[in-house]
């Protein structure tokens, strides 16, 4: 841990450790060293290898990608601290203050900065960029599907679009709430001066950052044909672009493991005096349960991908039936990660809305304990349901019944989340500001997503629905309709604290309605296509599905327009929006007790908590 002073920033000298290497390193040096490592590895490994053998190509490409990642981290100075430890020293106080970005203005966003608020903003901008790229790919997919027989893109490009849209959005959605708000807001919410491990915090972001160019490189290596699920043996058969996918997941798993441990430790160990567990804001509880769930989930994905990498580089044959392997092994490993991951995405979004609803309805959160029971129940059950993705795989038909039971049981804790929200709304007079609108959108979207999930969890109905557009529509209702809506609500809510300015309301309203109406048109159209029998991930389809697909595409353009308006609102408000007061919503959580810009150590005096943050309202009647 750093030993930062609690003195206000103004009374401290600006750190200036001139002779330290730390001051010379930034994103630029990281990229230079990364690129040198990448090309160095590429040429060194290529020399003397038969590059007509795909195994060799895969070896060279994978190692070059990892070399880029490690080189970048060396170049940005991520390993200076551990290196000092090796020689029996540590960073000086002055260097640590420098690393925290004290007094460095905008340049600290491009450095290995340990301040959780800087990391939060880095995540926010990174997530927005990923959503932008993923959204653009979604627009291209929907454009290709606007009419049957369309050749807007070729089948190769289409399959790559489907896979890269999928993985880009999944990665973005995993960090969309816990990245920006979990890093920027959460430590302040619990009254901490920083995260438990500030250097690991910076590491988690910059490791993730190195995965972005790796994933983008898939386009230049021929794309990926497998969708984001990367099922074997198709992934064994796939071309060089697949290496980019494999490397991305392995790098990303490192980032989430680091971030998950950091957030969990922070919440367990660094809460303000008096913040007992039953006084912790519900967003903090949700984010913690979410990352705690990620800690076992993502390493499984990493293992699955390492085995894919071994199959592709040294022909181990984990997933190759010809040499005794099995594609079902991959499917199991993938979904052992894949289903908890859905809730890793969902829970922070819901928790953000549970934080928002009491503030705007001016009522306590209804049944705080039910909310925790809901999150904990979902997290517990979510590790026992993975094989419902494999009902039709033929893997273990005799397990379909048991997995159906565990899956259906998830509807009980999920129901509690609804109860908490509608209980909070009950008899309330909501202050209809931007964040509050998201609560209503969530209730509608997640209701549809939840009910359609019940059909899908039922084996006989899944006989028909599995692998159809119906599934695509269902999980977009939960991931986009519920989780992204929650994150956008969170952004509107915390924007004043993160930027010091209010989010433009008019832009926000226009965006909200275009996105929500468009979203429902888009995915109701897709439900129809799925019910009619259209498989998912198809570049083309029969005339029977033409109407449903046209409806979907129209909805998609509306979502796209709405998102552009939101982007404009965010940029415009960030630059020149109305200056926000310290507590624009009259909320009672700790982050609203600190000014903007938030001081380096957040609180001039460590806060003491005497009650939970939901003491709104008057006694009845």
């Amino acid at each position: 841990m750093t030993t930062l002073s609690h003195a206000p920033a103004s009374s401290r000298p600006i750190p200036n450790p001139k002779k330290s290497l730390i001051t010379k390193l930034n994103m630029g040096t990281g990229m230079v060293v990364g690129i040198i490592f990448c090309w160095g590895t590429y040429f060194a490994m290529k020399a003397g290898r038969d590059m007509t053998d795909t195994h060799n190509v895969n070896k060279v490409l994978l190692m070059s990608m990892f070399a880029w990642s490690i080189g970048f981290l060396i170049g940005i100075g991520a390993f200076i601290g551990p290196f000092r430890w090796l020689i029996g020293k540590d960073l000086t106080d002055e260097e640590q203050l420098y690393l925290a970005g004290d007094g460095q203005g905008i340049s600290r966003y491009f450095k290995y900065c340990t301040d959780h608020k800087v990391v939060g903003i880095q995540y926010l901008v990174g997530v927005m960029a990923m959503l932008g790229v993923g959204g653009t790919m979604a627009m291209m997919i929907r454009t290709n599907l606007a009419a049957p027989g369309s050749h807007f893109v070729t089948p190769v490009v289409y399959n790559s679009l489907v896979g890269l849209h999928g993985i880009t959005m999944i990665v973005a959605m995993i960090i969309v709430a816990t990245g920006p708000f979990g890093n920027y807001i959460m430590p302040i919410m619990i009254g901490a001066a920083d995260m438990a491990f500030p250097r690991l915090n910076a590491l988690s972001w910059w490791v993730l950052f190195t995965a972005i160019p790796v994933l983008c490189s898939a386009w230049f290596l021929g794309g990926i044909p497998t969708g984001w699920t990367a099922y074997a043996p198709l992934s064994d058969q796939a071309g060089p672009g697949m290496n980019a996918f494999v490397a991305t997941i392995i790098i990303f798993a490192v980032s989430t493991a680091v971030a998950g441990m950091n957030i969990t430790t922070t919440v367990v160990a660094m809460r303000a005096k008096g913040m007992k567990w039953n006084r912790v804001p519900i967003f903090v509880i949700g984010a913690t349960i979410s990352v705690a769930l990620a800690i076992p989930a993502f390493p499984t994905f990493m293992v699955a991908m390492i085995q894919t990498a071994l199959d592709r580089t040294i022909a181990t044959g984990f997933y190759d039936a010809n040499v005794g392997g099995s594609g079902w092994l991959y499917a199991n490993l993938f979904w052992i990660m894949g289903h908890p991951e859905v809730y890793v995405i969902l829970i922070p979004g819901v928790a953000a809305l549970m934080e928002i609803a009491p503030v705007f309805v001016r009522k306590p959160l209804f049944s705080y304990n039910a909310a925790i029971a809901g999150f904990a129940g979902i997290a517990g059950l979510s590790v026992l349901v993975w094989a419902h993705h494999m009902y039709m795989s033929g893997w273990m038909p005799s397990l379909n019944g048991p997995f159906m039971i565990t899956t259906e049981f998830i509807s009980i804790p999920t129901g509690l989340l609804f109860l908490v929200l509608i209980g909070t709304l009950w008899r309330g007079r909501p202050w209809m500001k931007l964040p509050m609108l998201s609560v209503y959108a969530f209730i509608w979207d997640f209701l549809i997503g939840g009910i359609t999930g019940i059909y899908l969890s039922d084996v006989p109905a899944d006989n028909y629905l599995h692998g159809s557009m119906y599934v695509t529509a269902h999980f977009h209702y939960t991931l986009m309709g519920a989780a992204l809506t929650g994150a956008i609500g969170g952004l509107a809510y915390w924007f004043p604290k993160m930027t010091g300015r209010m989010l433009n309301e008019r832009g926000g309203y226009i965006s909200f309605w275009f996105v929500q109406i468009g979203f429902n048109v888009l995915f109701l159209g897709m439900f129809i296509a799925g019910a009619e029998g259209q498989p998912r991930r198809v570049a083309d389809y029969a005339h029977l599905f033409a109407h449903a697909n046209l409806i979907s595409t129209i909805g998609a353009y509306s979502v796209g327009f709405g998102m552009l308006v939101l982007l404009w609102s965010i940029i415009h408000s960030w630059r020149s929006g109305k200056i926000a007061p310290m507590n624009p919503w009259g909320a009672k959580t700790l982050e609203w007790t600190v000014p903007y810009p938030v001081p380096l150590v957040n609180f001039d005096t460590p806060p003491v908590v005497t009650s939970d943050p939901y003491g709104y309202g008057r006694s009845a009647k």
Partner: protein
Amino acid sequence: MSDHEVEVLPPTPGARVGAFIKRKDVAQTFWLGVFFTAVFVVLGLWAYPKWMPVALTKQMQANKDIMIWFTVISAPIAGVVLSIAAKSFLNMHRGDTPPEEGIAIRTNTPVVIIWTATSLLFCIVAIAWGIVALNTDSAAATRDATKSLVVDVTGSQWAWSFYYPEEKIHTHTLNLPVDRPVTFNVISDDVNHSFWPVQLGVKVDANRLVTTTIEADPSATGPIDIKCAELCGLYHAYMETSGAVQTPADFASWVTSIQATGGVQQ
């Protein structure tokens, strides 16, 4: 806390319920709930039968029944959730200052218990329904195998092919006789595919070197669309063929016509 008045509750539970029902906001919420419930009931009873294809097997009919009746059963729950949300939405406060403080309801134990018990009940209904339907499918698997028509299905990038071992014919369309159970043995030549004869309402993955089996009970005649439901590479979208459930006489003459051309469909 701006106001510390205490709610004066009626003396008996019966009187409390009576007072609750008479409240204007409760009545409005109730009628909103009726409206939303009706929307979902209509969606279930009207939309799904309209969207989903004609059922040619008992399995497909079971699928459709689940889609329809689960929607109808979940309609009241959707009604409760949406009516409370809608009522609060309609009661909105606009402006730049927060509204007055609401009522400090921290929790309501009976409501939490009733809610949880109700969702448990719905959950059990869904599970029971699913298990019964699943058992019906399994029963089909264990019935007298000699009666069944056997079809070996092979998926390869990017086409389906069929072999009828008893009739000794190789085909690229899937024709079946009505009222005779059929067993599909499914395998892949390369990557994973998923064999989906849409109107039959069954599906199973085609895996490399492992045979998976499903049964169907064709109970009506009509065309079948066969698709691949598992992304299998470049031309996944075009990996489809067609077929039909036919009368036994039509099926027999179709078999004969293929046997006449050396057992391979032209």
